[in-house]
């Protein structure tokens, strides 16, 4: 069962996170706390015109939250604001079980989290931070 939650892909992103770090003078710098556990994430993004030209994340948290943040940065890089918003919405609706995870999608590695309702917030933390950053005018 743990193999379903802590998949190879999640553990790879957790132990070798992509785009971990900070961005100087970012358009988005959003710090979010998971009030349940005190885990925190900061998401940074830079836009070039309408496109995400760089995205990074910092903070500390469990394997699920860190891997999900890492996967998010890969997913949103190069996307337009509208496309990024669509990705975030789509991810959140998959995490709440409203829509299915596509089979061949890396994000499907997070599918196991759905069975642990207390961990869904870990998986969506960075995504919520990015959305909030855009909502706040970033």
């Amino acid at each position, binding site marked *: *069962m*743990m193999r379903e939650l802590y998949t190879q892909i999640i553990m*790879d992103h957790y132990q070798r996170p992509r785009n971990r770090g900070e961005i100087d003078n970012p358009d988005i710098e959003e710090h979010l706390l998971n009030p349940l556990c*005190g*885990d925190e994430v900061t998401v940074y993004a830079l836009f070039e015109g309408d496109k995400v030209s760089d995205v990074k994340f910092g903070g500390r948290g*469990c*394997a*699920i939250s860190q891997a999900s943040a890492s996967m998010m940065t890969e997913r949103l890089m190069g996307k337009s604001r509208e496309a990024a918003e669509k990705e975030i919405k789509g991810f959140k609706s998959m995490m709440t079980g409203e829509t299915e995870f596509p089979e061949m999608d890396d994000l499907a590695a997070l599918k196991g989290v759905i069975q642990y309702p207390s*961990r869904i917030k870990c998986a969506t933390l960075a995504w919520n931070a990015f959305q909030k950053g855009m909502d706040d005018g970033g």
Partner: protein
Amino acid sequence: MYDVAEIRQNFPILDREVHGKPLVYLDNAATSQKPRQVIQTLTDYYEKHNANIHRGAHRLAEEATAAYEEAREKVARFISAPDSDGLIFTRGTTESINLVAHAWGRKNLREGDEIVLTETEHHSNLVPWQLAVRDTGARLRFIPMLDDGTLDMEAARRLIGPKTKLVACTHASNVLATINPVEELARLAHENDALMLVDGAQSAPHMPVDVEKLGCDFFAASGHKMLGPTGAGFLWGRIEILEEMEPFLGGGEMIREVHLDHSTWNDLPYKFEAGTMNIEGAIGLGAAVDYLDELGMENVREHERRLGAYAHGRLSEIEGIVLYGPEKDRAGLVSFSLPDVHPHDLSQLLDEEGVAIRSGHHCCQPLMRRLGIAATARASFYLYNTEEEADALVAALVRAREFFGAFA
């Protein structure tokens, strides 16, 4: 003689399995399991005596009232309170402290007054005071924690002074396992004409409590952490202080005479028990106290002291583990972290093996900040836990680490 095997037979839930493994329940600081005797008391109450208490002139109301008031007597005796009129049933520690912060604080706090707390408090002994000072202009001061997890008592002696109106401190820390010198704090408070409130959420279930010896003016605890049902706890307060306090909640039972524009208040303890109380919860708590009395709180403490020390020793053998709190004189819980596995992932992996622990900030965010961490894992023991269960915890931790290590 303290026989854990026999005690365990009284707790039906300890027989169950989780993910096909025997349940190892080490989350007792969050809530305890309940013995058959308490569960049976609740069933009996609903099958034989259920009625609303007080003012009923029928048989069931008399029986329910007698059982409720008997529970009050039992709980008062359990903490060696000088009288039971100062024993008020509440939902638990949180409500008890809110009651004092509201009913005493709003009336007695002024600008320039100070409330002295510690850096290590649970949110339930912090946030009610933040609300009280926000409304009154008083301010909060904090006794710092030394690096070994004990309180800086030299700082306490400086902080508690003529401006202090109340000192509030946890008796036993739910994160550090520190048992705080509340007697000494009460003495300092009284030397300065201040009151002393003790948060007994983690002490009343685990060690003998004598409010007279502690010298406190208020003592708050939760029934569900001491074998009782959820939603019933208590506040004990000195009669002369409670009498001077404003009511907390208004409504039925707490009044003597009601007019359209004003009311007068009922005697203690009813002045603070508005509305229909958690009757079965209080009666269940009475049964829990009977159970604890039978075991003897000295014996419970000795069992947990030994088991806590054993677990602490076994855990300290794990390479790289960080253990929080003092080395000695600990309550029966251990907070820890591993550098390579986050506490949340740890508790998830342990659950797979039937081992229930807690991870997170444990409602102590300022303390977590002071420790420079976001979260810890915590194993908390109770009167029915065994050394074998501590061993199961350690074995599961080692396997969790291997599991994570395999991906590195």
